[in-house]
C-alpha cells in the first residue's frame, strides 16, 4: 500500500532454478512496489526465497518470468545504482578497511578527483566509527566492524537503492544494536533519501528499522504472504519503543503470521 508511486517495482516475478524434473521454483508471482526513500524489510523462514528476491533486485539473478524496474528502467544486471551489503560482508581480505571502501567508490566514480574520493571515504568511515581502524585488514577487525565497513562501502557510492542481505545475522545480540544505529546514522546522513530493502529473519530488527515489513510465505513457490505497515514515528528509540502498544501489537501479529499462518513445514 505505497502512498507515493512505485520507485522500485517487482511484477509477477518467478524464479526457477534448473530444468526438467530437477526444476525448483523458489519464488512465484511476487508483486511488490516500493516507494522512494522507503525502508522495507523482507522477513520469512529459511528457504523462503528472501535472499533470492534480493539478488534479483541486485541483478545477480535474472527472473524466469516477470520483471524488475527501478525508477522506470528495467533491471538487467548488477550495477552501482543498487548497493549491496553481502550476508558475509564480502570485503576483499587483501585490502585495508580504507581501500575496501575507496576501491568501490573509485570504481563507481572513476572521474571524480582523488582528493574528493579520499574525503568521502574518511567521512563514511568516521560515520561508522572506523576511522581509527582504517589501515587494518578485514582479518584484523571484529565481525561487527567488518559488517560496518561493508555498510559504509555500500553507502559510499550513494546508490539509489541499498540492498541488505541478512547483514547482521552473524553478529551477537550485543553488537547488533550498534550496527542498527550505524545504519540509521548513515541513512539519516542522506536525509533518509535512500530506498532500503533489507532481508532479515529478526522480527525486532525489522520493526525497529522498517516502514513496511513484507512477510513471505514458505518455499517452494514462495510469494508475498502479507505486507505489514510500521507506523512508529522516527527517530525511534529502541528501548522506549519496546513498551508501546503499537510495537507489541506489531510483534504479536508478525509472530502469529510466521508461527501459524506461514509456519514452517519442517
Amino acid at each position, binding site marked *: 500500500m505505497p502512498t507515493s508511486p512505485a520507485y522500485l517495482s517487482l511484477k509477477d516475478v518467478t524464479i526457477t532454478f534448473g530444468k526438467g524434473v530437477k526444476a525448483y521454483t523458489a519464488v512465484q508471482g511476487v508483486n511488490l512496489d516500493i516507494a522512494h526513500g522507503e525502508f522495507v524489510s523482507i522477513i520469512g523462514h529459511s528457504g523462503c526465497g528472501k535472499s533470492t528476491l534480493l539478488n534479483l533486485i541486485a*541483478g545477480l539473478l535474472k527472473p524466469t518470468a516477470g520483471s524488475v524496474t527501478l525508477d522506470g528502467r528495467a533491471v538487467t544486471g548488477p550495477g552501482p545504482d543498487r548497493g549491496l551489503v553481502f550476508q558475509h560482508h564480502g570485503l*576483499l*581480505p*587483501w*585490502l585495508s578497511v580504507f581501500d575496501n571502501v575507496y576501491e568501490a567508490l573509485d570504481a563507481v566514480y572513476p572521474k571524480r578527483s582523488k582528493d574528493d574520493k579520499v574525503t568521502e571515504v574518511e567521512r563514511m568511515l568516521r560515520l561508522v566509527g572506523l576511522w581509527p581502524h582504517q589501515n587494518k585488514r578485514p582479518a584484523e577487525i571484529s565481525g561487527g566492524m*567488518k559488517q560496518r565497513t561493508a555498510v559504509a562501502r555500500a553507502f559510499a557510492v550513494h546508490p539509489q537503492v541499498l540492498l541488505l542481505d541478512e547483514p547482521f545475522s552473524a553478529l551477537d545480540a550485543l553488537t547488533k544494536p550498534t550496527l542498527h544505529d550505524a545504519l540509521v546514522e548513515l541513512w539519516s546522513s542522506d536525509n533518509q533519501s535512500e530506498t532500503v530493502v533489507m532481508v532479515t529473519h529478526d522480527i525486532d530488527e525489522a520493526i525497529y528499522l522498517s516502514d513496511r515489513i513484507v512477510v513471505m510465505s514458505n518455499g517452494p513457490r514462495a510469494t508475498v504472504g502479507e505486507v505489514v505497515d510500521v507506523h512508529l514515528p522516527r527517530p525511534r528509540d529502541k528501548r522506549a519503543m519496546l513498551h508501546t502498544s503499537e510495537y507489541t501489537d506489531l510483534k504479536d501479529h508478525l509472530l502469529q503470521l510466521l508461527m501459524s499462518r506461514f509456519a514452517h513445514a519442517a
Partner: protein
Amino acid sequence: MIPPQTMTHRQTLYHLSAVGGTGATAVVRAVLAGGFSVLCGITLLAAGGYLASLASPKDLPAPAAVFDVLWTLITDPFYNAGPNDKGIGLQLFASLQRVFTGFAIGSVVAIPLGILLGSNRLVYRLVDPVVQILRPVSPLAWFPIGLATFQSAGNATIFMIFITSLWPTVINTAFGVRSVPITYRQVAQVFHFSRWKYLTKVLLPYSLPHILTGLRLSMGIAWLVIVAGEMLSGGTGIGFFVWDSWNALSLERVMAAILLIGVIGLLLDRGFSFLVNRFSYTETE
C-alpha cells in the same frame, strides 16, 4: 560463499614445510627444529660416509676428505685458470644465471597463460590436455630440440629450464584464477569494477599466493634439472663441475658439489617460501 572456518594459504596449499605457533615461541621452536635437523643431517652424512668407506675403501671418499675439499673450494671460489679450471663460485654463478634466465622467460610466458587458462573455460579445455601431456616429459628430452633450434649448448640449457619452469606455474596460476570465490566476483560486479580494477584488485591479489607457489615449485625443479642439463651441455656450471670431477676421479669434489647444490636449492626455496607468506592473506567469516 566463503567457507566458515578461517583459513590461510599456508594451510590450503601443498607446502613443503609448516611452521606453527606465533611470535617468540615459534622462533625458538624453529631454531630448535632447525638445529636438530642439521645435527641429524651431519650424523646421517657421517654414518653414510663411514658405511661407504667400509664397503669399498678405495672408491668413496671419507667425510673428512670431503670437508677438506669443500673448504678449499669455498675459500677460493672465484679463480679462473682457463676453460676447464674455474672456481666453484664461478661455476655456481653460471648455473644460477642460466636457471634465472630460463625461469624468468618461463614465468613471463606461464603467468599470463595461466591467467588465460583460469579465466576462460574454452581455452582451459583446449590447452589443459596439451599441458597434461607435456608436463610429465622429462625436461632433458627437450635438450636436443633446444640444440637443433639454437645451435648452442648454453642456450639449449636455458631453453630446457624455460620448458621446466612453465608447467607448475601455469597449473597453479590457472588453479588460483579459477578458484576466485563467487562473492568477490559479485563485489566486482555490484560496484562495476573495470576489467583493470578486477585484474589488479581482485584476481591478482587472490591468485598471488597460488602463483608464487607455482613459481616456487618451478624454481625447485629448474634447480634439479640444471645439474643434469649441464652434464649434457658441458662448458661451465655446477653440473659440468660434477661431471668433470667424476672424470678427474675426484669424488671428494663431487660430494662437496652435492652439498653446495643442496644448500643453494634450500636457499632458493626459502626465498620463495618467504614471498608466499608475505603475500598470503587470511580469509575470514
